[in-house]
């Protein structure tokens, strides 16, 4: 939108808005730089043991070394693939399950207590069971990623569907709509905002599921690097992996947020 200040006061107001926005952004960057600086300087001056706490330069060096020998991309690729698979399958299956439960209200009522318990249960507790059932491999990790995002998606989307009130559905019936038409024209669009919040929740959840899965059973991946680094006291490796995770998780979250913006407009 173009800005046309209508008066001096309005111009001042617009300026103050811009100033606030700049101030917030600078503070955000400032905090990051300050933490990195204190971390680096503290490690150099031996305020704490860099062997235990690592330091930005050591993290950077580790990332560079991993990147040079090529293993970095293997680990990132493995974890990313598992997470994206878990996230996509979890949300798609979860949303489809929500549709089924909306379509069959009696089934919904029958399964309600199970859904409540499953939603409350920390799904990662099932990790060891999955490994026994599915085997010690990537499949178990992906299933973990699915489980963690599936139930929360179902519950959130189903809740979103209820935004299509009985009265709106009655209106559709007065127009002569079939159940499928009621679903596609009223219920599904009403559920879209909640479907997107479900995506935002799931995207974080899938990371949790996959990393925990890698802790339990893996030969590659960022979760593997973290566990391995911890066991052999290579804290540089642990910190480097966590830093990469931060970046990846943030990128994926913003991708979903971008999608949300696209859908909403």
């Amino acid at each position, binding site marked *: 939108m173009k800005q046309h200040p209508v008066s001096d006061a309005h111009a001042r107001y617009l300026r103050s808005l811009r100033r606030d926005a700049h101030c917030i952004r600078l503070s955000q960057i400032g905090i990051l730089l300050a933490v990195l600086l204190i971390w680096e300087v503290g490690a150099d001056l031996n305020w704490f043991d860099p062997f235990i706490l690592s330091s930005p330069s050591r993290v950077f060096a580790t990332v560079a070394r991993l990147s040079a020998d090529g293993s970095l991309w293997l680990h990132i690729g493995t974890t990313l693939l598992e997470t994206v698979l878990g996230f996509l399958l979890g949300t798609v299956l979860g949303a489809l399950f929500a549709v089924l439960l909306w379509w069959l209200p009696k089934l919904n009522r029958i399964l309600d207590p199970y859904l409540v318990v499953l939603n409350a249960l920390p799904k990662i507790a099932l990790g060891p069971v999955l490994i026994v059932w599915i085997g010690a491999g990537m499949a178990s990790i992906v299933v973990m990623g699915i489980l963690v995002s599936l139930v929360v998606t179902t519950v959130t989307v189903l809740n979103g569907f209820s935004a299509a009130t009985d009265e709106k559905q009655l209106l559709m019936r*007065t127009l002569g*709509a079939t159940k499928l038409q009621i679903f596609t024209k009223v219920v599904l669009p009403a559920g879209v905002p909640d479907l997107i919040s479900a995506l935002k929740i799931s995207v974080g959840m899938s990371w949790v599921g996959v990393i925990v899965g890698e802790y339990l059973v893996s030969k590659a991946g960022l979760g593997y690097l973290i566990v391995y680094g911890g066991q052999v006291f290579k804290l540089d490796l642990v910190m480097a992996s966590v830093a990469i995770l931060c970046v990846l998780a943030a990128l994926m979250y913003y991708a979903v947020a971008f999608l949300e913006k696209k859908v909403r407009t």
Partner: protein
Amino acid sequence: MQSELLTLSDVSLAYQTVEGETVAIQDLNLTVREGEFLAIVGPSGCGKTSVLSLIMGLIPQSGGTVRVQKPGLRMGYMLQRDHLLDHRTVEKNVLLGLEVQHRLTEQSRKNALQLLDTYGLSEFKTYKPNQLSGGMRQKVALIRTLALEPDLLLLDEPFSALDYQTRLNLSDEVYRIIRREHKSAILVTHDISEAVSMADRVAVFTARPATCKADIPIGFPAAMPPLERRRQATFHDYFDRIWEELQA
């Protein structure tokens, strides 16, 4: 006398709940003739809305018969609230009924857009419903109903959620639309003035279980619009008569 459009004979309706059975309507007899504007007034909760649901076929009656005398009679239902779909533009909301009934053709679309134009809403056709005022929204809802080209309009307190001024203006407008398009209509309301100002005939319902206790013809010419009717001296006589029936 005009031919009969719809006849309800000895219709009854009972609702089942855990607490027991509620008889909403009992031994109801009602006739609507072609081109007629019938108003139904009655105490709130007396089952007026249920009558419309019965006629529309949304719920089955417990007894009696609802007979549509004219084959292929098209009915259009208008609810108390507009229930426009927020994710659709005004134009898409207006076309919703046609779309649902697979009757969206070049011609029917043109018709619907023509209605928007006639009622001063064509410049808003790309707007979303939440950008419109309450009166405009209700008008869009009316056009959504009219786009289906119904022969009989079922109006379920369509003005009650609006402020007083909008309500008078819109009822005037709806009245003109219905007369111009030669539709028949059943208006359900608890507002006696509204009933007298719009209808050819007012059916007074009793409290639950509802039945029709009085059938009062309103003697204004059909060409006289609601606001004009409200200024007539006899307006208050009709009002008083219906009021007494409701009180008795």
